């Protein structure tokens, strides 16, 4: 178990780092959004085209990066909402069992199948260097690849959560403090 907990800790560190870095994108997203509005009005005023599809697309690329890179980090912090009508009344043991079932029957199969059904279309996008169909738009292949990155990170985090819940189930002492999930949503 110790070995696996070490693995979990590494995974947690990875996703924590990626998540923290990605929060920086939020401010950039605000900045680009404001610039796009300014460009539109300023452009009309000075009769010059300051806006561009590249800047508009950067906006949704940034948002995609935020939720793609943030999903595993959010999972680590128990930020994905649950229907906890029963769950919250269960003891730690039962909750761990529910989580283990969820991880093995829902999370991992879903993520693996998304990867399985996506990689070809992403590869295809790379092979033809797919571009935005709109004038001045951005390349599509990098952002499409983020689906693979995101669901891979989720699989890793799922494994980490699985290990931690297994350790809980086995009442494995000592629960290292850095592995106890935050009490973000009520119930866990």
């Amino acid at each position: 178990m110790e070995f696996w907990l070490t693995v979990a800790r590494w995974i947690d560190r990875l996703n924590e780092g990626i998540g923290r870095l990605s929060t920086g994108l939020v401010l950039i997203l605000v900045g680009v959004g404001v610039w796009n509005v300014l460009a539109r009005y300023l452009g009309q005023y000075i009769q010059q085209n300051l806006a561009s599809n590249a800047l508009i697309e950067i906006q949704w690329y940034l948002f995609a990066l935020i939720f793609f890179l943030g999903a595993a980090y959010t999972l680590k912090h128990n930020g994905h909402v649950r229907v906890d009508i029963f769950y919250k009344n269960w003891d730690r043991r039962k909750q761990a069992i529910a989580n283990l079932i969820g991880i093995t029957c829902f999370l991992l199969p879903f993520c693996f199948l998304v990867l399985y059904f996506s990689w070809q279309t992403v590869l295809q996008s790379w092979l033809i260097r797919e571009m935005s169909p709109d004038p001045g738009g951005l390349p599509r292949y990098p952002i499409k690849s983020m689906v693979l990155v995101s669901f891979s990170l989720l699989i890793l985090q799922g494994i980490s959560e699985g290990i931690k819940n297994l350790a809980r189930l086995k009442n494995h002492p000592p629960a290292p403090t850095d592995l106890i999930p935050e009490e973000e949503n009520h119930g866990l």
Partner: protein
Amino acid sequence: MGYDWLGPAMFAGALLLLSLGYPVAFSLGGVAILFGLVGVALDIFNPLFLTALPQRIFNIMANYTLLAIPYFVFLGAMLEKTGLAENLLETMGILFGRLRGGLALAVVLVGALLAASTGVVAATVVAMGLISLPVMLRYGYNKQLATGVIVASGTLGQIIPPSLVLVVLGDQLGISVGDLFIGAFIPGLLMAGAFALHVLIVAFLRPDVAPALPESVRNISKGELARRVVSVMIPPLLLIFLVLGSIFFGVATPTEAGAVGSLGAIILAALNGKLTGSALAEVSDSTLRISSMVIFILFGSTAFSLVFRGLNGDRFMFDLLTNLPGGTVGFLLVNMLVIFVLGFFIDFFEIAFIIIPIFAPVARALGLDMLWYGVILGANLQTSFLTPPFGFALFFLRGVAPPEITTEDIYRGAIPFIVLQVLVLVVLILFPPLVTFLPSLG
């Protein structure tokens, strides 16, 4: 054909499996995959069909409307985390003095405006949840009333024009979006009015659930009050109304207004000396987590509806409906029921795509006024966001509500508002001119 019931069975399966308490996003995706595999094993589902899944994910990524979500979450989180929202609502509470339920009324008003102008349920519910829920709780509001008001007014935007639901419906039904907007105007007002009336009546009958602010808070000098109004009430109110107004008058799209509003919130925080590095980091962190939560629910939901279609669940429903007795009333009743059930797990875009091709021909055959029918569908879709145990608006609020709010609080809180919406819906069905009168003038 023999296994067409598998599609509808997905709903029962999801109902069961979601109650396990595993995160909604992955449970929905997982249920979809499980049923897809069953379909493959029974040889009624071509696994290649699932290669449409990445395209659907890309489609959600590239959806410009959803881009409003991070901005409104940021705006809400900024006002909340820096205490600006609290000061604002508190000062309003003092101004309204003894008026019980004043805070809840303000939420109905602002929520309806915000919802109406963004048209994105997730953005509205999350922003209102962040801004107003903690304050209402602190001043002793009943948890159920507080959460009910937020989810209900957050979904109001689906029927108050300009509304995304109506745009999609108009497109699908082949009727003028402009007429739909005008037709939905009175129904939208009726709903907002019903909510406000409900809050007033509840506050009157049961002072404990929506108290006025305590004497100790209210009791400040006139000079102090004036200072607070100018310094903490007017600036954020101005910001909120600038954001809403710019969307309403077509100066900016919801996404644009959200972006500028976010910057405005940052500036406000700075002016109040609350803008610290850690506050910015915290707000960005909330934005990232909440956006991830919302978008991944949409991913799970899109997988769910893809498999539902792959299993010919839509055809099953069509066969069921076309063989239904009961005329117009029976048809409308089934309409409502189906939308409620679909609304448990499927985003409204997808509901519109699934049901309208099935329902619209029947409605035409029954000779219904399509404009009226479109508004009824819109009102109906709105209610489906609220239906426990799995309405989307309920998930979104659950995701940002503090721990002392239980999921049951949110469910119970939604129920009176669902009843109100159904009542308004019944009134609209009984009195079609409420919808058709205004458009007939044009």
